[in-house]
């Protein structure tokens, strides 16, 4: 079974995010980059499939040369090899990313293509399904379970508290939802070896962008909360607050 996991390095949500001067991106220096948390589920699922039925797991990322760090993080988890589709003018446009990934993958054979359901940086959630669409293969988004059969797979999705079960022939693409599995911690030994591991680099095929990022802005500051002290007058104070200050009634 050949499994390809598409991964992205995203700013750690605990980092202090600062918007660049031109308002078109974020300052890279002050940020720690991590493997996108949803991609962790995808990588874990790929490794589990390999461990149960055998095969090979390749991690793929697209971006600046520096994005190779996310591939090394994958090696530390047990991924066999990695490919960086390099784009020196990487713009976070999901269509461009999907087009470049698809144009690389169309010449490569694989059985399962895995993605995280979205990147926690911009939350587009489009690259996985777009890539599958361009490649002309079936895709199921936000899966919570994956069972591998002989020529097809059964996967689960959560739908309004119910479970939707879908059968899909291979090759197919899936995007991972939280709960698909519990990702492992890296192995220190694999992490050490990962530093020396060869990464294949190819240039991204460029397509014209159809999205123009106009401006990034900080969210407005939240007004300070108000505490109504717990005493016999609390209820009437709360009603008064809701009527006259918050004006919810």
């Amino acid at each position, binding site marked *: 079974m050949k499994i390809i996991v598409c991964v992205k390095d995203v700013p750690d949500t605990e980092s202090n995010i600062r918007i660049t001067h031109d308002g078109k991106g974020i300052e890279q220096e002050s940020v720690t980059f991590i493997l996108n948390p949803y991609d962790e589920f995808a990588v874990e699922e790929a490794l589990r499939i390999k461990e149960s039925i055998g095969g090979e797991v390749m991690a793929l990322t697209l971006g600046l040369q520096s994005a190779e760090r996310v591939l090394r993080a994958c090696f530390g988890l047990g991924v066999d090899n990695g490919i960086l589709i390099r784009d020196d003018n990487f713009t976070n446009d999901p269509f461009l990313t999907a087009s470049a990934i698809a144009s690389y993958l169309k010449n490569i054979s694989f059985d399962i293509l895995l993605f995280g359901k979205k990147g926690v940086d911009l939350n587009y959630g489009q690259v996985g399904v777009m890539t599958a669409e361009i490649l002309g293969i079936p895709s199921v988004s936000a899966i919570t379970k994956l069972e591998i059969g002989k020529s097809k797979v059964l996967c689960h999705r959560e739908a309004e508290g119910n479970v939707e079960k879908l059968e899909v022939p291979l090759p197919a693409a899936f995007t991972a939802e939280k709960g698909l599995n519990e990702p*492992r*911690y*890296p*192995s*220190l*030994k694999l*992490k*050490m070896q990962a530093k020396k591991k060869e990464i294949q680099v190819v240039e991204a095929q460029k397509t014209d962008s159809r999205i123009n990022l106009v401006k990034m802005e900080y969210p407005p500051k939240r007004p300070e909360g108000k505490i109504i002290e717990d005493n016999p007058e609390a209820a009437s104070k709360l009603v008064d607050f809701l009527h006259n200050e918050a004006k919810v009634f």
Partner: protein
Amino acid sequence: MDYFLTDEQKEIRNLARQIADEKIAPVAIEYDEKGEFAWEIVEILAKSDLCGLYIDEKYGGLGGGVFELCLVTEELSRACGGIALSIAATALGAFPIILSGSEDQKERYLPDIAKGKKLAAFAITEADAGSDIGAMQTTARREGDFYIVNGTKQWITNAGEAEIYVVIAVTDKSKGPRGASAFIVEKGFPGISFGKKENKMGIRSSATREVIFDDCKVPKENLLGGEGKGFIIAIKNFDHSRPGVGAQAIGIAQGALEKAVQYAKEREQFGSPISSFQGIQFMLADMATQIEAARALVYSVAKAIDSGQKGFAKESAMAKLFASDVAMKVTTDAVQIFGGYGYMKEYPIEKMMRDAKITQIYEGTNQIQRNIIAQALIKEAASKKKK
């Protein structure tokens, strides 16, 4: 403070910290209450290669030393001193094999310890032989290709859970301390059994039991370093392991400090957070300063050992002594800052005070550490005089 860790050491520390925060901290109180051994955590540590940091790469370890062991022990102890002990006590059982084992013994035992597949333990203490190792009653007599071991070891950390035991037993009573020998005993050997689990004040998730030898047959190939070397092996072992106790103490103290700072910011009395009161501020400042001083000492000693310094019994004792006294003081003050809440089991802080206490007692009481330090000082002075 920046201790100029290598990238590799930073990765070790960060991974241990992540596992401590995500996996150990949420279950620490539960394991403490139940007094159960945390195998689920040991398995996670094993898969991440944190069990074999100090073992040579040749035997499947990461090729680090005492310093790397200290880093991981400290980080795990921040979340739970008891769970961290399973790894540190394994090192105490593994060091004699690393330091005095034959090639064959190393090949047979170290790879499984390095992988975290098996835990180890060191069995020296007896009911009447604590600080006074010379009073040891456990014996080993040679019979053909075997040694027959008889006696009972007490308060053995990891007992029952570990597969590999390094046991000190008397092979020649007439020679006193020079008549003790060290053996590698497997859990599966005939004649070894375990007493009841001790009900302890702290480090309750750690397994502490008697190890009982009743005509236990140990192959002669499992004698470590030759007959009569038991005492030296034990001393060398403690010299290597004591900074690890120091690291455990720093970890517990650091965890308590972090919780105390957080609590002081949130707890309001007289209309303001108690962190705004100078009385609390001074306590926090002292706690942090003491921890940093202890850490600097433990790290320096660990690095000196790894860089091949000859004779470090004194420094090793200092690291254990100072760090454990700091941990006791810091955790007691942390409970004080929490006030009445600190005394309640619902809050994690009283556990840290209970866990800290053992670091002043085991691997040689702090009084024994002071003996070691003083004896070294007097010996050094005497040797200077001769010149």
